[in-house]
């Protein structure tokens, strides 16, 4: 397999891998490293890649496992991932302030969710995968995915309602 062929396979989902990694690891740099690692692992095992039925699902599973491992090792070392995602002002400041206020809340709420739910929210609500696909990626059954998703969505909604009504009620 040449580099071009490999990139053609990988390109469509590399952003998804990155976003999942970022969801779990929070820091952009860490997520970039993780994505790189996952893609390089794929590249090194490119001979086996043809055997996989669904490379995308496989890489998502790989990413999830990789990030969990990373988080575990960080916890064991008693280190917290420090994230300083310095954004440069591509979007105008005004817009950023507007968005940041309410949208940042969502990101913070999701950050507080259990890891399993985080992954499911990411895969379903952001990447828009099928339930069956998610179930396969996470090695869970369909109903378990739905239950977890429902819990996560309810938590987000409740917390959002609280912040939304803060000071009113």
């Amino acid at each position, binding site marked *: 397999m040449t*580099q071009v062929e*490999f*990139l053609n396979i990988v390109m469509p989902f*590399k*952003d998804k*891998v*990155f*976003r999942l990694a*970022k969801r779990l690891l929070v820091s952009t740099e860490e997520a*970039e490293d993780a*994505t*790189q690692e996952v*893609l*390089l692992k794929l*590249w*090194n095992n490119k001979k086996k890649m043809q055997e996989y039925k669904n490379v995308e699902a496989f890489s998502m599973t790989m990413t999830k496992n990789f990030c969990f491992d990373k988080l575990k090792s960080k916890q064991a070392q008693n280190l917290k991932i420090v994230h300083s995602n310095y954004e440069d002002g591509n979007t105008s400041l005004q817009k950023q302030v507007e*968005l940041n206020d*309410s*949208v940042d*809340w*969502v*990101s913070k709420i999701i950050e507080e969710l259990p890891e399993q739910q985080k992954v499911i929210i990411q895969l379903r*609500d*952001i*990447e*828009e995968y*099928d339930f069956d696909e998610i179930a396969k990626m996470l090695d869970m059954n369909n109903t378990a*995915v*739905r*239950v977890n*998703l*429902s819990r996560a*969505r*309810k938590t*987000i*909604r409740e917390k*959002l*309602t609280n*912040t*939304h*009504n803060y000071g009113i009620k």
Partner: protein
Amino acid sequence: MVLNNIEDLLEKYENGETTLKEEQQLKHYFSQETVAPHLEMYKPMFTYFLGNQQEQFTKDLPLKTKRTFNYKWISVAAVVVLMLGFYLKEPIVTSYEEYAYGTFNKPEKALDEVTKSLAMISSHFNKGTSTVNYLNEVKKGTATLGYLNEIENTTSIIFKN
């Protein structure tokens, strides 16, 4: 869009029962400027989901094509070298005439040729020895120098006395 419909969808959404298409509808509804006031709190959620889809991985991938040296080729090269060696060691024979060069069919003719070449060798040899003849002159010269010994004998007798 009917507000009732959205509310139904939201309920289904929270139970994790919506299809992807229905979720698209919700996302579309909440990306509008104005949303029903009692549903306002859902807006950031869906905006966040939509906004997060845009994030991209920009770091480039250092893909290295691993150059693993194939040791099989070493043996192939060795075999080639060996074969070439054997091939070049054998005289390259193209025709019978060439192969038969320097041999005779009739023994008389062979004897003839041998005597001829031996005669040639001896004549050349003689020529060589004749040039060394002058060494005899040197020998003669040293013989005539023998009388010097006589002189030495007499001087020794003189000094003895």
